[in-house]
């Protein structure tokens, strides 16, 4: 799973490469555009994901101690947090769409090139990240069911541990996306 995580880092890495080139070329436009993002939503989502990392780590901890109920409880909390993240994200995107801001929209195309690039990257990167959150939720739900059926246990925790690693990766990617999109000065 660690090696797979490396590949995911590089997958997003390609997008970070594009981001760094374009931010270098259009610093003012990136700054102006980032002011239109909702910092509160971004900060809230950061806190949500960080907390979900805590809960999944606790879930693993309790599973290893064979305290199934607590493990499943914390895993469920993780799922809740992940879902909340997606809901907030959904509202953010809807807000942007309402203002006519989406790739190839007339509103966006009327703006400065740097801003077009900023929003293009914004949707691409947060979109890809959200997809990974969704996949993570799917995987964690499956593991929750398997714990319930005693297929994942204190003696065979690998599936939960690997899923946890994946989830932490999703958190780490957001830890970088947050300042790079929401906190540009």
């Amino acid at each position: 799973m660690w090696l797979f995580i490396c590949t995911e880092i590089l997958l997003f890495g390609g997008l970070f490469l594009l981001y760094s080139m374009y931010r270098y070329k259009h610093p003012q436009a990136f700054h102006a555009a980032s002011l239109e993002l909702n910092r509160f939503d971004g900060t809230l989502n950061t806190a949500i994901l960080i907390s979900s990392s805590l809960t999944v780590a606790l879930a693993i901890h309790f599973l290893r101690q064979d305290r199934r109920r607590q493990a499943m409880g914390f895993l469920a909390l993780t799922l809740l947090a992940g879902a909340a993240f997606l809901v907030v994200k959904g509202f953010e995107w809807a807000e942007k769409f309402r203002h006519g801001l989406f790739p190839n929209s007339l509103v966006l195309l009327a703006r400065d090139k740097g801003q077009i690039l900023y929003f293009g990257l914004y949707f691409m990167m947060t979109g890809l990240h959200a997809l990974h959150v969704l996949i993570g939720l799917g995987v964690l739900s499956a593991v929750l069911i398997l714990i319930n059926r005693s297929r994942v246990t204190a003696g065979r925790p690998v599936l939960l541990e690997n899923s946890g690693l994946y989830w932490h990766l999703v958190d780490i990617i957001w830890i970088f996306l947050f300042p790079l999109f929401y906190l540009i000065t």
Partner: protein
Amino acid sequence: MNAPYEAGPHEGSAPYYARRGGLPGILGWVTSTDHKRIAILYLTVILAFFFAAVVLGILMRIELQSPGPTIMQPQVYNQLFTLHGIIQIFLVVIPGVPTILGNFFIPILIGSQDVAFPRLNLTTWYLFLAGAALAFVSVFTGKGPADTGWTFYVPFSLRTVVNVPLATFAVFVLGMSSILTGINIVTTVHQLRAPGMGFFRLPLSVWGFYSTAWVQILATPIIGITMVLIIMERLFGIGVFDPAKGGDPLLYQHLFWIYSHPAVYIMILPAMGVISDLFPVFSRKNIFGYKMVAFSSLAIASVGSLVWGHHMFVSGQSDLAGIIFSLLTFLVAIPSAIKVFNWVSTMYKGSISIEPPFLYALSFVFLFAIGGLTGLFLGALSTDVQVHDTYFVVGHFHYIIFGGMGFGFFAALHYWFPKMTGRMYNKRFAVVAWLILFAGFNLFYFPMLILGWQGMPRRYFDFLPRFASLQFFTSIGAYIMVTGLALMFFNLWRGLRRGPKAPDNPWGGATLEWQIPSPAPAENFERIPTITQGPYHFDKTEKK
């Protein structure tokens, strides 16, 4: 290895291809997690794709035999070379050696019963098929196959009406397969080596596979995201590569080549690894400079991942970038040269036996040397301006990829054939086929170097009359080469069906695969051996 590990008959020693409970017939194969069966699964489909791509190539050569349209229109020609490239690169050469020979032999060479993740292994084959199916669909549906070249350069790939999204998605799926294979190989080599098999007692072929696997893991994700970006651009107009929206087409080229250059090292490193196993065996002498050869594989993998800009010397990148990439390109030639030197030095004062595998190995060195040297012309900024996007490049990469990886693969096939099939092919026929193949190859691709130098551009459907005679000559070379190819495969096929039973160790090799029966049994080792020496000590082994 140690005083030979005698396998002998044991439970589970029936050949890996024999029926053994479970599902019957072909179902038993496509659901098997045995690394040897998966290798054969890969072999069958990859060979099929290879033949298809060769046919496309021949069609192109017929077209190019004379100026003007010969058998097709320009648009079709563009689609042919695109498809030929996509099939050869993504469906044959990148996966080829790791998934066929790596899958079959890595566990055996390191003294293990299977790879680290057998079920994942089978999954990679299904992903591979899925990618191939998507590519197939892209050819026969909608407005037809991509005509962009296998490189999908923007802006054309964003605007052409043909099936670019399907083709790029196929590449994405194939990339996933490659990544998972790489993960499997790295884990296998780290976790499953037999007791006593330190890293520096590994056969050099394993070093080749190992270095390659790292490139598969670290580089492939970049092509993944790049293909996704093409699809997103076409579907949603994101704008990252579109100058009208502030995008930079050159960044596409950066992203594309950040993977696609290391990809060619994915192609060549395993082949070089196998060649490193062959030279000691057919010289009956330890490899010259084991550690240097091992480290050179790592060096090629790492430095080779830093040279991608040499594909973009004339695309408009900065002079500084050009200089840096040119320098790095020259640097990566050094570990390759080290390998060539060490192979040749292995032969010195050795006891040479010219068997078919070794013929291919020797011709590999020759062809790879030509390919590599022509690469230096391309790597030097000033000469590249002259030959970029000409037939010189086409000649160069066919020498390196086909002459290199291709002949290396054929060498490995002839070497490991008895272990994989339990039979031996007709050696004399093999030599004749090799001769025709080798002669045809050079008649085919050497003129390209001249054509390119004289200015004939690549990917052109038509050409000026002054190029006509060399183009004709090239096509003749192609037909001769394909004849040799056909004879070679025919011979192997005949050996498979009716060849004499092969001994366990026909070449007198000292690596672990020669200490188990031919064909390989279902269970590699009755007992995991303990290793006490390096892989190329020939005092005690004998051909049997």
